[in-house]
C-alpha cells in the first residue's frame, strides 16, 4: 500500500526575539488509509505538525522537510495556489473549538455551501441539497433548521458536527483533526467520535487525530505517535499501548487518575533532559 502522506524530517522554526525556537524538530511518519493519533502535552509540537501539513503555519515561521508529500505531490514545492486547491478539497482539518473556528456572522448552512462551491462547480440548489445530506450524515436531526442558524445559536456538540460536515462535504482523502473533542462534554465527545469514526471508515480516509489525551487516542486510533519537545519519542500500535517502552509514554499513562485505582499521591512525570535531546 502506497502511503497517502509521507513526512520525513519535518522541522518548524519560529524566529523570536531570543533566537530561533524549533517547535517541530525532525518528525517523520507516513500515513495510509488509517487512523493515526499524535499525542503530546502542550508545546510538544503536535499541533504545529498538523498545521505544517495543512499549510497553515504562520508566515514568519520556517518549514523544512526532506519529504513532505501528499499523494506524491511535494507540498513544500507546491505553489500557494495549488496548496489552496488541496486544502479543504483533498485535505481537511477540524479544529478544537467550534466557537472560535466557525465564522460567527455567517449561517452554518452558508459556510458549508461556501466550502463546497469553492472546490466544485455546483448549482446553488444542488449545493444546498448536499449540505442538507451532509448535516444528516453527522446526525443532526433537523438539518433545515440548523442550516439557517448561526454558530452562537448551537451547542458545542452541534457546532462540532457542523464543522465535521463542512470538512467532509468536499470529500477529502485525508483529515487532520486537532483536538476535535477537547471542548466538548464527555458524553457528547463519544457521539462526535462515533460520527467521525463511521465517516472515516466508510469513505476510506486517512485520519490524523491530534490530542493531549493518550487514553482517548488509544481507544480511537490504530496507531499512535507520542511527541515530546518537538520530537517523536515513540511510535506504537494503539492496542500495544500497555507495552509502551519510553518512560515519557509510560509516565503520561500513569499520571492520570483512574476509577478504581487508589493511588495517593499520583505518580508524577520525572522529566529527563535526555528525552528532549
Amino acid at each position: 500500500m502506497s502511503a497517502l502522506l509521507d513526512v520525513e524530517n519535518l522541522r518548524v522554526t519560529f524566529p523570536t526575539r531570543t533566537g530561533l525556537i524549533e517547535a517541530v524538530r525532525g518528525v517523520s511518519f507516513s500515513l495510509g488509509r488509517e487512523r493515526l493519533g499524535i499525542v503530546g502535552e502542550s508545546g510538544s509540537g503536535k499541533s504545529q505538525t498538523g498545521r505544517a501539513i495543512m499549510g497553515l503555519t504562520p508566515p514568519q515561521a520556517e518549514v523544512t522537510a526532506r519529504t513532505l508529500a501528499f499523494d506524491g505531490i511535494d507540498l513544500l514545492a507546491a505553489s500557494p495556489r495549488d496548496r489552496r486547491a488541496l486544502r479543504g478539497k483533498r485535505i481537511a482539518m477540524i479544529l478544537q473549538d467550534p466557537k472560535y473556528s466557525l465564522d460567527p456572522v455567517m449561517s452554518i448552512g452558508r459556510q458549508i455551501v461556501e466550502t463546497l462551491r469553492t472546490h466544485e462547480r455546483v448549482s446553488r440548489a444542488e449545493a444546498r441539497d448536499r449540505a442538507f445530506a451532509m448535516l444528516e450524515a453527522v446526525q443532526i436531526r433537523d438539518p433545515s433548521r440548523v442550516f439557517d442558524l448561526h454558530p452562537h445559536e448551537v451547542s458545542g456538540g452541534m457546532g462540532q458536527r457542523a464543522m465535521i460536515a463542512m470538512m467532509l462535504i468536499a470529500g477529502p482523502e485525508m483529515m487532520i483533526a486537532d483536538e476535535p473533542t477537547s471542548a466538548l462534554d464527555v458524553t457528547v465527545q463519544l457521539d462526535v467520535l462515533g460520527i467521525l469514526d463511521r465517516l472515516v471508515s466508510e469513505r476510506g480516509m486517512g485520519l490524523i487525530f491530534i490530542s493531549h489525551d493518550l487514553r482517548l487516542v488509544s481507544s480511537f486510533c490504530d496507531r499512535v505517535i507520542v511527541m515530546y519537545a518537538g520530537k517523536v519519542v515513540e511510535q506504537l500500535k494503539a492496542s500495544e499501548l500497555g507495552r509502551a517502552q519510553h518512560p515519557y509514554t509510560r509516565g503520561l499513562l500513569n499520571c492520570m487518575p483512574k476509577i478504581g485505582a487508589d493511588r495517593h499521591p499520583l505518580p508524577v512525570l520525572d522529566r529527563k533532559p535526555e528525552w528532549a535531546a
Partner: protein
Amino acid sequence: MTSALFIDRLEVIFDRFRALKGVSLEVQSGESFGLVGESGSGKSTLLRAIAGLAPVASGSITVNGKTLGPRRDKAFYREVQMVFQDPYGSLHPRQTVDRLLQEPLAIHGFADGEKRIVRALDEVGLGTGFRFRYAHQLSGGQRQRVAIARALILEPSILLLDEPTSALDASVQAEVLNLLEEVRRRRKLTFLMVSHDLAIITHMCERLMVMQNGEAVEKLTADDLVRRHVTKDYTRNLLRASEGFVRTA
C-alpha cells in the same frame, strides 16, 4: 459534629433561566465532596452561589453553622476561598505574584504579610524565586499554584475548587492534584470540588453528587462509583463515557 456546609433547596435564577432547581447538600467538616455533570448542569453555579457570585433566588446556605445572608461579610471569605478553572484568567495580568498575594492580606488587615507570603509560596512548592514575577511569566501549572497559594493565605477552612486542573496537561494535573491533597491533609480542609471528570472526582473525593439540568441526579460515595453501584442511567452513561471510545462494529 457540625457540617461545614449545609445547602437547603437552593435556587439560582439568571433572568428567567433556572440554573439551579432546589438543590440540597450537606458536606461534613474535613470531608472532600465532588460535583460532577456535563456543562450546563449547574455544578459551577452551585459553587459560585456559595461564594456569592450567583444570584440566589431562594433556599439557604449555612457555613460552619452560620446561615448566610444575601451579602457575604469579610469573616465569610476568611473561612471560604475559591480556586477557579482558568489560571490564565483568574490572576491579574499586571500584578506580580507578591502583589496578588498581598491583596487578600491587606483586605483582611493581616500584619505579618511578609511571613505569610513566603510561607504560602513555600507551601505550594514555588519558593520565593517566583515572588516578583508576573502571571504571564509562569506556566499553567505554576499559575494554578499561585491561585492555590492566594486561596490558602487567609487560612480558610473550606476550599471551593472549580475544575482546578482541566486547563492543565495530564502530568501537571497530577502534580496539582497531589498538592491539593497534601494541603487538605495538612490543614484539615473541607473541599467542595467541581469536575466533569469522574476519575478525578473519585480520586479526590469521598462522596459526590451527580448533577444534570440544575438538579441533583444522585448522591453516592466514591466507593459506590468504583464498584458500579449506581442507580441512575445518567450516571451510568457518564461512567461509560469516561472509559474512552468503544467502536461499535
